[in-house]
């Protein structure tokens, strides 16, 4: 298949889909056998990105694939199109989200320990409903609190490919030589840990829930545990 033809199909697909498309999904467009290989597809994507250089759109790779998006620099021009302003999120929600992002898997109690204040059910519900956060298991302590982790939808929304793309956390300075430093949290996101949690979590006690289905691209469906008290009534 001609290079130009591949590019044409890929562009149309990205614009038609309205959501990021993974390389696998793009590859599916061409059928199993005779389609272009991944290298050819990447070339087409590169070519598209090049085409958009002087345009108001750009090709962006995020966690769940590629999407064509309007460049941030165009936002000012397009203000009249925004009838509703984008939702604003409270500091409490953003702080909770960032704790989940950097410290996942983390329980509500652990978030509260750091923030020094209660995390409302409302915040957790909003994060779950937005699909930014999911429950990846339960900590084996009394009450078996749910552990939260971020989703690929979260990365997509904030234009990131992986958790490593999160802005780095600042260092903690130590007050005295001994004592204080112990038990310092790890700085980097523990994505692998989450993955293994999800794997291990296929046990019978891990119930299923609609939250996973919300995320069709989420390979962990079936591991999410219902939070009856958090579900919207």
């Amino acid at each position, binding site marked *: 298949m001609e290079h130009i033809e591949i590019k044409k199909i890929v562009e149309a697909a990205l614009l038609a889909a309205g959501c990021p498309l993974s390389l696998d999904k793009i590859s599916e467009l061409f059928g199993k056998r005779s389609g272009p290989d991944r290298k050819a597809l990447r070339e087409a994507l590169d070519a598209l990105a090049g085409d958009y250089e002087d345009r108001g759109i750009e090709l962006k790779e995020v966690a769940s694939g590629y999407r064509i998006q309007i460049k941030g620099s165009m936002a000012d021009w397009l203000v009249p199109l925004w009838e509703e302003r984008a939702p604003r999120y409270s500091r409490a929600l953003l702080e909770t989200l960032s704790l989940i992002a950097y410290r996942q898997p983390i329980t509500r109690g652990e978030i509260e320990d750091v*923030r020094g204040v209660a995390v409302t059910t409302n915040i957790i519900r909003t994060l779950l409903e937005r699909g930014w956060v999911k429950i990846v298991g339960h900590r084996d302590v009394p009450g078996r609190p749910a552990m939260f982790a971020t989703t690929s939808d979260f990365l997509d*929304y904030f*234009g990131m490919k992986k958790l490593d793309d999160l*802005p780095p*956390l600042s260092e903690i300075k130590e*007050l005295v030589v001994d004592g204080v430093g112990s038990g310092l949290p790890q700085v980097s996101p523990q994505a692998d840990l989450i993955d293994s949690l999800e794997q291990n979590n296929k046990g019978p006690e891990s119930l299923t829930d609609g939250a996973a289905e919300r995320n069709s691209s989420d390979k962990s469906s079936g591991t999410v545990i219902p939070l009856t008290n958090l579900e919207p009534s």
Partner: protein
Amino acid sequence: MTIDSNQSDKAELRLVPTGPPPVSSEGSTPSQSEMPFAVVEGEPLTELPRDLYIPPHALEVFLEAFEGPLDLLLYLIRRQNIDILDIPIAEITRQYVEYIELMSEIQFELAGEYLVMAATLAEIKSRMLLPRSEEMENEEEDPRAELARRLQEYERFKAASDEINALERLERDVIQASAEVLERKVITKLPDLTLKELILSFKDVVARSEQFANLHFEREPLSVRERMSEILVKLESKVFADFTDLFDPKEGRMGVTVSFLAILELLREALIEVVQQDPYDPIHVRVSYNPKLEKNATKTEPA
């Protein structure tokens, strides 16, 4: 007058310029050598004036802008440019308690965490006042250490949340580009099935049936059952078939045997009939019931 930052828009930044009596930030000279905690339209703003009259409602808004006691403490510390590792605990405690009291005075519904923190501060203060021997000095850490750690820990996530908030994000900063799709061909996929699933289903159904009824499955070669189906199909289009037509010599002895067993089984199940007019006449076979040929069958049936 707005603050150009979408992060931690402390209410007093709105409060100071709007609250009566108006305080002009431009004109105010810092009474202490404090670091500015905010910049309002280019002018540094260093402190909430002490005798400032604050309408109760405005104060509520101000207090609501804090995400809990750690946030309030951090504010007090940062406002005075205090080293977080060397907090003047007595002074900070005094200021903190002042805020707390102010809150209760205006019947602000105070979250329990604020009171817990007040107690914690008081406790640290008292521990600081205790005379400490050299020995203890070595064994015990600074009473403020835990607080300093918590404050920093909270502060880094507060900062991180500001950074996350600043990331270019969908809806607010970038929009997914999309084009209208007029013709949407939807193909519903058929479910997949594995042989394993099928076999396990059979195992289940057999196990169940043997439990309930006294049904027992004979161990008949499947090839015979398959051939039975084939013969039925073959006979479907015919009124009568020649018995010999049901055998294919090319299949060899095994194949012929399978066909013969199939015919016997079909006969046993009364699915076919075998007819022979006279000894040594050709043998004919037909299906016991053939809806397609029913009408014709009655006419052409040999006498």
